[in-house]
C-alpha cells in the first residue's frame, strides 16, 4: 500500500509539472488579450483593490501633505515669479492655437497625429511581482480604454495599456518594456533622428533608444518624444531626455540611453491617451464589436 501511495504522489507530481510547463508555453504564445473568465477575475480583484485603495490613499496623502507644508513658502515665492512669465506664455499659446486652427482650416487638414483626448484614471494597485512592472488603473472598456493606448502623466509617458477589462485595465510601464513593446520615437525639434525605444536597462534605470537614423547629430540632453508612426500613440508625448550615447556591442551603430521624464516608481494619477486619428487596427476592432 505505501508503494502505491508513493506512486500516486509521483504521478500527481509529474502530471502537475507537465501541466504547468504547457501552461507557461501557452501563455507565452498568446498575446491577444485576456479571455472572459480572466477579465472577470481581474475586474473582481480590481473592485476590491479600489475599495481598499481609496481610504488608504487618503491616509497616505495626509502624511504627504504634512511633509509638503514645510516647503510651501519657498515654493510659493518661486511660483509667484514664474506666474508672471506664465501669463505671457498662455497668451502666446492661445494666439498660436487660433493661428494653427486657421491655417489647418485653410489647408483642409481635419486631424493630425498630434491630436488626442485624454481620460483621467487613478492607479489602484501595482503588480507586487516587480519583474513585470505593471499597474492597474480604475478605468476599463466601459470608459473607453482600449488595449495599446498610451498612458502618460503630466511629466511624460509612463507606458501603455496592455490589457483592458470591463472596469479596470492593466498598464505596462516603460520600465518593463522589452523588444515586444517598441515605441517609435523621434528627437524633439529634429525629425531626421528617428529610432525605436525598445527595452529598459534595469542596472542604470534608463530606456534604450536604438535603430537610430541620423545618429551623428544626436546630442546629450535632447528630448525624445513619440513619433506617432507606431500606430496608436499620438505624436509628441515626451518620453525622456538623452543621458548618454554609446556604441552598441558590435561597435557598428550607436545606442542612446534615455532618462524617463516621468517618475515610474511613484505614480498615482495617469491619463490614458486616445488618439483622434485612429489606426486601422483599432478601427477594425471597433467594427467587429
Amino acid at each position, binding site marked *: 500500500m505505501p508503494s502505491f501511495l508513493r506512486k500516486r504522489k509521483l504521478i500527481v507530481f509529474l502530471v*502537475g*509539472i507537465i*501541466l*504547468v*510547463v504547457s*501552461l*507557461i508555453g*501557452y*501563455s*507565452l504564445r498568446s*498575446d491577444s488579450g485576456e479571455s472572459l473568465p*480572466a477579465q472577470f*477575475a*481581474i475586474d473582481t*480583484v480590481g473592485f*476590491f*483593490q479600489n475599495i*481598499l*485603495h481609496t481610504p*488608504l*490613499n487618503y491616509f*497616505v496623502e495626509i502624511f504627504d501633505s504634512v511633509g509638503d507644508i514645510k516647503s510651501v513658502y519657498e515654493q510659493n515665492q518661486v511660483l509667484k515669479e514664474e506666474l508672471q512669465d506664465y501669463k505671457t506664455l498662455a497668451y502666446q499659446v492661445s494666439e498660436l492655437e487660433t493661428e494653427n486652427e486657421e491655417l489647418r482650416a485653410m489647408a483642409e487638414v481635419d486631424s493630425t497625429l498630434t491630436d488626442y483626448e485624454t481620460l483621467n484614471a487613478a*492607479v*489602484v*494597485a*501595482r*503588480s*507586487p*511581482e*516587480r*519583474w*513585470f512592472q*505593471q*499597474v*492597474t488603473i480604475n478605468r476599463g472598456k466601459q470608459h473607453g480604454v482600449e488595449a495599446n493606448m498610451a498612458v502618460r502623466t503630466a511629466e511624460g509617458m509612463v507606458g501603455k495599456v*496592455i490589457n483592458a477589462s470591463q472596469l479596470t485595465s492593466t498598464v505596462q510601464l516603460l520600465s518593463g518594456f522589452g523588444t515586444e513593446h517598441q515605441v517609435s520615437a523621434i528627437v524633439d525639434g529634429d525629425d531626421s533622428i528617428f529610432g525605436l525605444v525598445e527595452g529598459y536597462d*534595469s*542596472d542604470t*534605470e534608463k530606456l534604450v533608444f536604438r535603430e537610430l537614423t541620423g545618429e551623428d547629430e544626436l546630442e546629450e540632453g535632447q528630448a525624445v518624444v513619440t513619433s506617432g508612426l507606431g500606430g496608436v500613440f499620438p505624436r509628441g508625448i515626451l518620453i525622456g531626455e538623452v543621458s548618454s550615447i554609446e556604441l552598441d556591442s558590435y561597435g557598428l551603430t550607436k545606442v542612446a540611453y534615455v532618462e524617463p521624464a516621468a517618475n515610474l*516608481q*511613484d505614480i498615482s494619477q495617469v491619463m490614458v491617451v486616445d488618439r483622434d486619428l485612429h489606426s486601422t487596427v483599432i478601427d477594425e476592432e471597433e467594427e467587429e464589436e
Partner: protein
Amino acid sequence: MKVFLLPLFMFIFFVTQSVAAELIPQTFWLGSLYYIPHWTLIFAILIITFYDREHSYVGLLNGLAFAFLTDLVYTNLLGVYFLAYGLALYMVHVLKRYLHKNFLVVLLFSILGLAAAEVLIYSLYFIIGQVDLSFNAYIFNRLIPTLLINILFLLIIYPIFIKKLVKWKYELEK
C-alpha cells in the same frame, strides 16, 4: 463557515499586498533595492504548520489557488507562481512532520519557503527571458530585502492569528 474564513483572509492579504506595493514608494528609502510581498505564501505556511493535520492540504490548496490568481492578475505568464508556490508549500508540508510547532520553526519554514519560491520564480523567468538581472545582483537587490520584509510581515501576523488557527483546528477535530 470556518471553511470560508481562511480563503477570505488569503484574499484580503492578496489584495492588500498589491495596494501596498502601489502606495509605498519604492525608491524613497530603499534605493535600488526591491522587495516583493509574498503575504499569501506566508499565511499559507502558517496554515500548513498550525491548522493542517498530517493528511489535510488546506494550506497547500489555498496557496495554489492564490498563486494561480497572482499569475492571472499580476503577470502575463500563467503557471510560474503556481509551480513555485506549489513546490515551496509542499516542501513545508513534508518538513513539518519532523519538527515541533513553535515560532522558530515557522520562521525557519518561512525563510526556506520564501527563498525556494523566489529563486524558482527568478530562474523560471530567467529561462523564459523575462528578466536579465545577474544572479549576484538578484541576491542582494531582491532576495534579501524580500526575505526581510516578509519576515516582518510574519512577525506582525503571527501573534494575531496563531491562537485562532489552533482553536479552529481543534474545533474541526471535535
